[in-house]
């Protein structure tokens, strides 16, 4: 599985309150959430983002609340992948559980700039900055998590488990 798109670049500690402010949490509809994604950190995000685009960020991406609405909003906005120096733990878990691809790669985060075109191969974890030609290798997921992602997320895992698969 691969992805390709333009980069939206953010810094350290992008928290769940800026990804999707609480004033929008009286809904869980992905399209409604997507309309307000990143609103308090970048008002232009929702206007500019196109399916396949990527977020690249520094340390502790997704810190703060456990709200699954955060990765839901990002995924519904069309983001194909989030690459960061490091992820906050609940966001990391939620992203895997809902099938939002995330890759931890400090070298990629350090090098890739806003507006660059990046492609990712999720099977190998290879990241390519097509604007500069730079290539990077993301940390591999443990087999259990690869399995979760391959099945399409945690709910699919639960279904399969119950069916003895």
């Amino acid at each position, binding site marked *: 599985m691969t992805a390709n798109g333009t980069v939206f670049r953010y810094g350290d500690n992008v928290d769940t309150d*800026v990804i999707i402010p609480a004033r929008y949490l009286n809904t869980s509809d992905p399209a409604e959430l997507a309309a307000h994604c990143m609103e308090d*950190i970048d008002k232009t995000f929702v206007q500019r983002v196109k399916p396949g685009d990527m977020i690249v960020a520094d340390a502790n991406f997704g810190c703060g609340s456990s709200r*699954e609405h955060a990765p839901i909003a990002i995924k519904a906005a069309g983001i194909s992948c989030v690459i960061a120096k490091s992820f906050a733990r609940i966001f990391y878990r939620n992203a895997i559980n809902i099938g939002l691809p995330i890759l931890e790669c400090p070298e990629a985060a350090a090098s890739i700039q806003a507006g660059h075109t990046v492609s990712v191969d999720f099977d190998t974890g290879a990241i390519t900055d097509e604007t500069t030609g730079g290539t990077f290798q993301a940390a591999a997921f443990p087999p259990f998590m690869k399995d979760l992602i391959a099945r399409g997320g*945690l709910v699919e895992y639960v279904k399969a488990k119950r069916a003895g698969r």
Partner: protein
Amino acid sequence: MTMTQKILARAAGLDRVEAGQLIEAKLDLVLGNDITAPVAIKEFARTGVARVFDQDKVALVPDHFTPNKDIKAAEQCKILRCFAGEQNITNYFDTGEVGVEHVLLPERGLVGPGDVVIGADSHTCTYGALGAFSTGVGSTDMAAGMALGTAWFKVPSAIRFVLKNRFTDPWVSGKDVILHIIGMIGVDGALYQSMEYAGDGLNALTVDDRLCIANMAIEAGAKNGIFPVDQVTRDFLKEVGRDRYTAFEADADAVYSRTIEVDLASLRSTVAFPHLPSNTRLARDAGDVKIDQVVIGSCTNGRLSDMRVAARLLQGRHVAKGVRCLVIPATQKIYLQAMKEGLLEIFINAGAAVSTPTCGPCLGGHMGVLAKGERAVATTNRNFVGRMGHPESEVYLSNPAVAAATAITGRITDANELV
């Protein structure tokens, strides 16, 4: 093994576990609120499982946007209510009975030592104060937990915090301990790790102090925060009717990634400035910061001891002109006891507004939202951009004494200045 690792090993049916190991653990409790449970209930339906794994081990607590804040919030609460009814959920609390989840559950004796608890709320880490392994997860994890009664975990490594001596400042409490720690290590200083507490300083900490400290483990990026079980814990558990539990202790040779000492005697009232819980400064060094709103409440500091501290300062004094002071006892039991002790009368006579239990303003939901350019001092746990309202508002985190003193003077104030 660390205390956390021992609890996880038992829950996974293993003799031992190591940091980094992936395990599947049996759950003692699965928790959700009015914001997170609707998504979980939707996902639960997709699993194909008809009944939750145990109707006594799921807790649904609509505390965030309640009493119903608007039509959409009312619809979300209705989803919880219907599901609780269909599934015969024992621990469902509606308006009139509900309180802030992380204060309510300990009060009801629903969490105890050795328990493995997941909650679709990041402050689920609070119950580590009672010697449980307790951690925040998302809605899909909550759904899977309700379906299977188990959850997958990556076993965390741990940082040991050795607390020494006792508080020497009468207005300093658990909140200052955790703000001091987060200020020291940063918002990802304990990323993916357990924060395990030890030392003679434990004797100086009440259960409320410990609940407050464990509550903000997530603000340092931790998986969980946890306290040993001692007489203080046991007395509390007896009081709330939780009599069966297993207390685990870290091995004497448990491996910690680092050990950090905290001298309680040296601590002074601490404030986290916008927009990170780690941006800390002493209250007395805050400078002249004018405030528009004060919030005393939340799962961090909405307990009876917090109400008493605030009342001691507000008694015979008045909220400054131009300041809105909101006091929110976290449960009906606390509200009633505060009423009996005359605290609510003190608050109202001082010009503060007293509210029914709710998370309300903590996450910018309702019951005290900030306008553009406004500043609040709050006894809550997070101060990211837009946390309490307008993205151009500011939140300063503090203990209840600073909050009350600030309400009186209209600027950030260490309570020692007033007394």
